[in-house]
């Protein structure tokens, strides 16, 4: 049998339906690939026995004619989603041993659709990072390397384990979460597709919270079609998430018509930032040409407050995090470090349990919310956020979608951006504005850098118009014809 791990979700779905192979065979192939991918450190917890059981149950359902939309498809789950009876860490020491007694809504929906869990994948601690260098469980390694160079590169973050697993063919798809670019940027760094839906489209219930007004689960897979298939099973109203939106879930796969004639695509001039590399700029121009050739109309637009998105984000997200992460105090979850009294126990537990980047953000957030500074920082940032959202609203009066690069560079090496957090934050310069506005966005692999690394283009859509994002993304994917894969050096 040919290598089942190389199939797309769509092809595996068809092969399973035709009886060419079983979910047990498909799952076994991925368990082997997962075991061989250890040098990438993509998985925190592997669940091969449960995967085999789930695949067996899936084959039985199929035999009875009860196949779901993702029946028998093996997936990796970002270790930020609570999974019943399976260790859930958020890649933090402070959640040592946390084993939820409940299942997140999104993963429950995936299992209802027939999907099989391979394991829980690594991430930046509490999803705070852009390079997967802040995990308590160690760095995730990008399966891609520069041409003729063996040095390890970051997979992006925070959904770096998800990206690395999908790009290395140890999972057909993975869940991610995106707060400021955590699905789209790692997708770009690893040559896969990552889709952040509109805020409110997928339930946040049971997802470890980072910044609640920004966090949004979404799919990561190797093709636009595969992410559309996954999102259809992940999305939907959930009464347990107070900001879940009660709207029907469209047939996202059906949106991939290949026809974008007459669509108006905006090119925001403010995204031509100082120092944008020629390579990224050329790729962006190439993307513009592809869409034009496919019959879209290209329109220059202005999003005047773009440059303020990052500083606003780095007040709002830490402020919300400082509130959300107050619950980790050595009482209800995981780690406890004893102290001389209760307060000392709290402070000692949090000092040992949180890593440096998380502490830095919690202190910024606490300061921004503290008496006397709330108006100057948090309120101001929320007002700037309103202006950024208004920029997009105005732009969408005139265009159907927006095309930008996903990230300002290709994947970089470990420690290359370690000294100054601001340098790391700049990675999210193209993804954060849409996060603040709650808009859907997709990163599609569009080419290789001079050094042989994947580069992504980002498409942004109107609120709850994921269908147009998928449609244009599909055309972009087709035009780019990105078929490169990393050499499988990690198999030794």
């Amino acid at each position, binding site marked *: 049998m040919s290598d089942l791990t190389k199939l797309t979700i769509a092809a595996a779905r068809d092969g399973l339906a035709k009886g060419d192979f079983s979910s047990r065979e498909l799952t076994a192939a991925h368990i082997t690939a997962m075991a061989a991918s250890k040098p990438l450190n993509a998985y925190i917890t592997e669940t091969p026995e449960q995967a085999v059981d789930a695949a067996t149950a899936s084959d039985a359902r199929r035999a009875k004619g009860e196949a779901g939309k993702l029946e028998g498809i093996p997936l990796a789950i970002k270790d930020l989603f609570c999974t019943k009876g399976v260790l859930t860490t958020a890649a933090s020491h402070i959640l040592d041993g946390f084993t939820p007694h409940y299942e997140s809504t999104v993963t429950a929906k995936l299992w209802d659709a027939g999907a099989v869990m391979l394991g829980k994948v690594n991430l930046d601690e509490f999803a705070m990072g852009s390079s997967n260098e802040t995990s308590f469980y160690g760095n995730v390694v990008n399966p891609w390397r520069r041409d003729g160079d063996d040095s390890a590169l970051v997979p992006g973050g925070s959904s770096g384990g998800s990206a690395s697993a999908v790009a290395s063919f140890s999972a057909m798809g993975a869940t991610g979460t995106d707060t400021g670019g955590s699905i789209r940027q790692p997708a770009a760094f690893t040559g896969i597709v990552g889709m952040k839906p509109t805020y409110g489209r997928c339930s946040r219930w049971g997802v470890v919270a980072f910044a609640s007004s920004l966090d949004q689960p979404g799919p990561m897979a190797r093709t636009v079609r595969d992410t559309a298939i996954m999102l259809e099973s992940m999305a939907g109203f959930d009464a347990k998430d*107070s900001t879940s939106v009660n709207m029907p879930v469209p047939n996202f796969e059906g949106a991939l018509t290949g026809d974008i004639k007459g669509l108006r695509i905006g090119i925001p001039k403010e995204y031509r930032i100082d120092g944008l590399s020629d390579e990224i700029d050329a790729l962006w121009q190439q993307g513009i040409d592809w869409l034009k050739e496919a019959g879209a109309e290209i329109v220059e637009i202005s999003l005047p407050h773009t440059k303020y998105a990052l500083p606003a984000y780095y007040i709002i997200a830490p402020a919300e995090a400082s509130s959300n992460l107050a619950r980790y*105090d050595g009482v209800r979850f995981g780690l406890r470090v004893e102290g001389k009294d209760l307060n000392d126990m709290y402070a000692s537990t949090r*000092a040992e349990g949180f890593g440096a980047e998380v502490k830095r953000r919690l*202190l910024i957030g606490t300061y921004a919310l503290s008496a006397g500074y709330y108006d100057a920082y948090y309120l101001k940032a929320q007002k*700037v*956020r309103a202006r950024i*959202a208004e920029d997009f609203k105005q732009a969408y009066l005139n265009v159907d979608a927006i095309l930008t690069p996903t990230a300002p560079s290709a994947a970089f090496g470990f420690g290359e951006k370690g000294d100054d957090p601001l340098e790391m934050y700049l990675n999210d310069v193209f993804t954060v504005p849409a996060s603040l506005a709650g808009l859907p966005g997709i990163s599609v692999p569009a080419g290789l850098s001079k050094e042989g690394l994947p580069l992504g283009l980002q498409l942004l859509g109107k609120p709850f118009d994921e269908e147009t994002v998928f449609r244009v993304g599909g055309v972009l994917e087709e035009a780019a014809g990105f078929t490169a894969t990393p050499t499988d050096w990690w198999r030794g």
Partner: protein
Amino acid sequence: MSLDKATVAKVANLARIKIEEKDLEPMAAELNNILGWVEQLGEVDTDDVEPMTSVAEMSLRWRADEVTDGGYVEDVVANGPNHEDGFFAVPKVIE
């Protein structure tokens, strides 16, 4: 606005994160680096702008104030590092 050592110590206490005396100064520098960069938000005219509090244009749903679920005491306490008889146990707080 620039944070000094004493302010960092105060914020760390509010955040319940123990920071060693020797680490306060470097932390102040790190935080000032970020806050200095954030200062540029002051350039944006936000007079008459309502702060954004909801991403989707929606109002929060109402529901009847009634019990719809619950009764999972053992599930709730199961992950606590120290629990007894359905309660989380903490160091003594009243002398």
